């Protein structure tokens, strides 16, 4: 006969004290996030086809490669727009998406990274719980933004070679004179795999932390809210005031 208790003995209750639902991820950031997911998926698929056209000799669609390239270029522009939006959010977004969180200028951020790595390496049983990103996550996102920028620049160089755009030519037209265009193509292609590897890492670590933390981390990227203990919020508030003054 099943127990009438609602608690599973293998998963005891996890008291976390008084909490609040805090709106952490504003909608532009969530739009950026899911826009990136979509555009990286589309760009990777179409880009891989452009690299190695695996559908050969069909007669049904007489503009197949043309369509792949059109979709790739269109989503490339969406990708660029999302990146510019993210740059704006560094300066216009809330505390947890501002650039200070991402650039490790303070020793405390480096110490936090070590603690995060200790959790990943099974040395510490508890993760570093933060309202926004932990220092390690934030730093890795800064790295992935650099990859995004490299992908955009190499992509624009290749685009400009075909389009001879009056806007792009002065911006990126000089780059093939420094780095050969074939190497730019190689970089553009190889960085795609960095995104895919990052995606695998990212989903795994988010699931892991969400499971241990039990603060609705996975939910937060959909709804914006995270479950935050009241005392942590107060501490963060004090820190924010101290930084402001």
């Amino acid at each position, binding site marked *: 006969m099943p127990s009438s208790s609602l608690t599973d003995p293998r998963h005891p209750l996890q008291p976390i*004290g008084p909490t609040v639902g805090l709106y952490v991820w504003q909608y532009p950031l969530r739009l950026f996030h899911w826009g990136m997911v979509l555009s990286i998926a589309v760009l990777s698929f179409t880009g891989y086809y452009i690299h190695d056209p695996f559908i*050969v*000799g069909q007669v049904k669609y007489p*503009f197949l*490669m043309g369509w792949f390239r059109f979709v790739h270029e269109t989503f490339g522009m969406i990708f660029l727009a999302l990146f510019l939006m993210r740059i704006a959010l560094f300066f216009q977004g809330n505390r947890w998406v501002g650039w200070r969180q991402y650039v490790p200028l303070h020793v405390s951020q480096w110490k936090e990274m070590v603690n995060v790595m200790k959790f990943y390496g099974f040395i510490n049983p508890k993760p570093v719980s933060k309202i926004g990103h932990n220092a390690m996550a934030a730093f890795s996102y800064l790295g992935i933004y650099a990859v995004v920028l490299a992908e955009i620049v190499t992509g624009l160089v290749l685009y400009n070679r075909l389009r001879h755009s009056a806007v792009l030519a002065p911006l990126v037209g000089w780059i093939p004179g420094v780095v050969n265009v074939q190497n730019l193509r190689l970089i553009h292609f190889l960085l795609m795999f960095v995104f895919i590897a990052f995606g*695998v890492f990212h989903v795994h670590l988010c699931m892991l932390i969400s499971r241990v933390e039990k603060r609705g981390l996975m939910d937060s990227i959909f709804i914006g809210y995270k479950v935050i203990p009241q005392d942590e919020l107060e501490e963060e508030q004090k820190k924010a005031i101290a930084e402001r003054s």
Partner: protein
Amino acid sequence: MPERYLAQTVAAVGKARKPVLVWLQFQDCTGCSESILRSSHPDVADVVLDLLSWEYHEVIMAGAGGYANALLDRIVKNEKGKYLVVVEGAIPTAEGGIHCMINGHTALEIAERVCRNAAATIAVGACAFDGGLVRAKPNPTGALGVQEAVPGLKVINMAGCPHNPVNTAAVLVHYLTFNDLPALDQYNRPLFAYGRIIHDQCERRAHYDAGRFVTEWGDEGHRKGWCLYKMGCKGPAATFNCPVVQWNDHTSWPIRAGHGCIGCASPRFWDTMSPFYDRLPSVPGFGVEVTAGEIGMALVGATVAGVTAHGLITMIKPAPKPPVEPEERKEA
């Protein structure tokens, strides 16, 4: 050239005083000379006999030895600042430039003397443009193109392996007509010939857009003349007017003949456009047999394996104890 310049061109070409042309040849295969001999717009007889006073060209001139040397000396002295010089071949700079010497002078000395005193220098072929084959890794002779070996010249580069004689003849006629060189790109190549991507002018482009590709030499697609993209054609990376002017009196050109473009008119093409039969360069440090795609797949595979292992360890390890309750914290 537009038709409205016809009268001007005819007048210029018919001028009494013909400019002297000197053709220097250094480290190369003579392919560029061979190529100009096959020029038909105008043909080489017209150029040599009517358009220019083509006085010095080791391959085709009648004179030799002391007579030829004296002729070159006389041109440099008497026609100073007025004659045109065409350079074919790379200029070696290693070990004092001894790897190419004519009449006891290094190629570098000859180029310095002849090009510095010329009205303009036309560097024909990949070797004279940027060192070409001679400069390809490991470049044992320290070969350089003319504009690098003799900096500061008024130079126009007719890149390509070989140069296309139609373009070179066009530059000569342009010079005769306007007494100046045509508009140049960032590599000093004339824009009229090197301004557009080969891929955009290619007769097989429709097959590319439709996704009809050759996947193996001699396969059905190859016999039908489909796009050579998957065979490593560098048409999308290279600029040249090859598809338009073609070769040997507009007979054919590499892609029509069924071979992918190797980007011969692009800077340092032996190093930058190879491997010629692969779409992308080999990744440094991985050897030539490993493609970029394989490296990427391996990276993703390793990541998946890594996170799977990490996830499994997390599941095997007991879940962390519940956090200390706030009441207990107060007591402690």
